[in-house]
């Protein structure tokens, strides 16, 4: 089957890409100028101390050996130890990953349906005031920095109105309700960050389908507007819409970094930024790769959805 072959090819490409990205991230942190040992110990370190630390970190090995040691560790679930506090990275990441996914999940649950509905409304009332308002809002929101949205929310809803906490602290012992209350503001901010983009793309995807000749054919058969959308537009719009959703989830996962810092939310983004500041290379490599993996996977799902829903590939000649 041609379609299975294409999907297999796409998955293989995704895996290949992941490897290439791991090389890139490793090379980006190891080959670029800058000495990890020197940056840990600071300017005043003695040559002896530097040498000891280098040996301990395995920095005297050639880069290619260090890469494969690192990669081997990754594949067996060993992400190494942090330079700054000598903690096992995998154990520190796990709760943070769960927190980040929790936040991203609820932001997606709100933003995806909202964006699809608004996008469809914009098509339904094309060039009307709803459409204009939506595209104006989209223009504004692609221009707003995340921290503007974040701090405006905190300023009004946390400080002035006192409805939500201004810091989204979460911990293991918290109840689900408290947790939801804690993430209410960051989830809203994330939603606002991706909403406009997703809406605009949904609108374009549906509009593209609605302007096809087969929609005119359906209209000339005397079908109602509802039947035209349900029977003729919808089956052809699924692929582009799934594509839009996946791309925006990828976007959302990245948006999480800044949002977490704004709301002091203990997730992956916060963890990454902290360790970039501390120049803790092993942590940065591991977290960077995880972000890239999520991003690559979501993009891959988008492509596979497009392959699966293409009738030309599903029913070859």
């Amino acid at each position, binding site marked *: 089957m041609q379609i299975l072959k294409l999907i297999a090819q796409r998955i293989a490409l995704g895996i290949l890409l992941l490897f290439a990205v791991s090389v890139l991230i490793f090379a980006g*942190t190891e080959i670029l100028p800058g000495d990890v040992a020197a940056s840990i110990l600071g300017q005043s370190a003695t040559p002896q101390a530097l040498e000891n630390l280098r040996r301990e970190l395995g920095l005297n090995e050639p880069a290619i050996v260090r890469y494969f040691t690192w990669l081997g560790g990754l594949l067996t679930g060993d992400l190494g130890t942090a330079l700054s506090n000598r903690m096992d990275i995998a154990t520190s990441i796990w709760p943070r990953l769960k927190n980040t996914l929790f936040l991203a999940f609820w932001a997606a649950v709100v933003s995806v349906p909202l964006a699809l509905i608004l996008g469809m409304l914009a098509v339904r009332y094309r060039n009307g005031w709803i459409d204009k308002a939506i595209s104006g809002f989209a*223009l504004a929101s692609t221009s707003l920095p995340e921290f503007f949205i974040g*701090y405006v929310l905190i300023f009004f809803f946390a400080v002035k109105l006192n409805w939500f906490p201004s810091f989204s602290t979460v911990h293991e012992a918290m109840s689900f309700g408290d947790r939801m209350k804690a993430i209410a503001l960051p989830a809203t901010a994330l939603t606002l960050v991706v909403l406009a983009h997703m809406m605009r793309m949904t609108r374009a995807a549906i509009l593209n389908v609605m302007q096809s000749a087969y929609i005119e054919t359906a209209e000339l058969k005397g079908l109602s507007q509802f039947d035209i959308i349900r029977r003729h537009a919808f089956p052809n719009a699924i692929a582009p819409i799934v594509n839009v959703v996946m791309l925006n989830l990828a976007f959302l996962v990245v948006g999480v970094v800044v949002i977490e810092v704004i709301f002091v939310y203990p997730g992956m983004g916060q963890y990454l930024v902290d360790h970039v500041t501390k120049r803790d290379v092993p942590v940065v490599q591991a977290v960077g790769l995880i972000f890239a993996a999520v*991003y690559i996977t979501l993009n891959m799902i988008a492509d596979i959805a497009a392959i699966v829903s293409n009738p030309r590939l599903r029913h070859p000649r």
Partner: protein
Amino acid sequence: MFDIKTITVSAWIGLFFTALFLFCAIFAPWIAPYGKAEIVGGVWEPMSEQFLLGTDNLGRDLLSRMIYGARTTVLIAAAATALSFSLGAILGFTAAVVGGWFDTLMSRFIDLLMSIPTLIFGLVVLSVLPSTIITLILVMGLLDSTRVYRLSRAVAADINVMDFVEAAKLRGEGNAWIIFREILPNALSPLVSELGLRFIYAVLFLSALSFLGLGVQPPEADWGGMVKENKEGIVFGIPAALIPAGAIAALAISVNLVADWVLNRTSSLKGGRG
């Protein structure tokens, strides 16, 4: 190229604010009431006649820092955009016209770079590089040039298969004529509008990095860094951090309005005058 009468209201608003920000950036030392690092009053003083926007977390005049901040922000963003644009456009055009192994190699490499989110990649690289203005410009410019490459390659590839380009090739014209005389004039309007978008992106990217503490380092001021400096005030109800954040938004929206107008105006023409 542009007729004054065809400028829309939103484009006028965009042009006005863009010009205002540019003015501040260029003439910062002459119009700022105080020095950028000069401590002139108490911490987080409210807006007053003496300090039009109040003072910041160290008691410096916020308005003066905003004006100097405009300079840093616009300068770095513009330099990064210039780098990303010239690099991306030249490589993209060449790949589309030359084709063959150069195109394949470049395009696969760009695919690889784009499979890592820009912010994440920026953070990874900045974890080992020193935070200087030059590094920032280079990192931002190089990472963003991938997007310019994609766009220019796609636009140029579309034009490259048109019959008028084939006619030029049959005439015996060289690659330089084909790129600069046949393709470039037809690729200009999407590229000009993209230039605006790339600049906005550079402003937002720089601000995000500075906000995270990895961009412009104190005592230099850029708007993202000023948000970071003043963010602690928010929980006490002091809106000082919202001012630079709002300025970033205003700059981005203004440029967006102008870019939007350029795109609408030129894409409605099939060619010819305009």
